[in-house]
């Protein structure tokens, strides 16, 4: 599912993510700063070695609504923000592949860095999304969880 690109581009998708595509999309003539964060599947978690993939599950409608809340809160805190793009994978994502991308643009770097950090932190805390760690011969839900909160409280 994907919203129509305007100044925000939010997507929950089973398709591969392209950090470059989001980085380019947020470029605006009045912006001297683009910050892009890409979250990647790594081979271990705090409780497990040899992770080969992650599998994400959500309710896409609710997740997109909560992502909009994240972007709204970022815009309230950093009014200079121009474009904001947040895409999150669902389904199985292989090792070293991007699971989430946040890209923001602003006239200056301070707002861009701060807003990008806020967006990924608030996403992790407030968007209903669950990941299962997969390894050879088994899988389990991630232990690295937090009670779901609100973007404005991050």
């Amino acid at each position, binding site marked *: 599912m994907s919203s129509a690109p305007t100044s925000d581009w939010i997507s929950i998708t089973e398709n591969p993510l392209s950090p470059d595509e989001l980085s380019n999309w947020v470029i605006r003539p009045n912006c001297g700063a683009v910050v892009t964060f890409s*979250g990647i599947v790594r081979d271990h978690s705090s409780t497990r070695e040899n992770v080969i993939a992650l599998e*994400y*599950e*959500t*309710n896409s409608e*609710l997740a997109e*609504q909560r992502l909009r809340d994240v972007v709204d809160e970022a815009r309230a805190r950093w009014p200079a923000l121009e474009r904001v793009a947040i895409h*999150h994978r669902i389904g199985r994502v292989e090792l070293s592949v991007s*699971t*989430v991308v946040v890209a923001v643009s602003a006239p200056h770097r301070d707002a861009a860095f701060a807003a990008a950090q806020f967006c*990924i932190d608030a*996403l*992790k*805390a*407030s*968007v*209903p*999304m*669950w*990941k299962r760690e997969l390894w050879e011969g088994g899988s389990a*839900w*991630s232990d*690295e*969880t*937090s*009670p*779901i909160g609100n973007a404005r409280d991050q």
Partner: protein
Amino acid sequence: MAKLILLGPAHDAAGRREDHFDGVTLDDVLKEAVIRYGADFGTLLEVSQVWLNGEPAAPATRLESHDEIMVLPPVSGG
């Protein structure tokens, strides 16, 4: 009749992604769900949030037909 939507680890604990319940209040449905699904679901429910129609709701909230109850275990996105 209210629809219960079970997300992430909650659907594993309950053995299904959605279900339907009669109940006057939200709490009635949750108590019945623990009886129906068992102790593991009850343990997960204790650390989960429960939303009604997309928003947090108090246990005493009275239900109407077509209400959607979501069980949201602690999240792990990103």
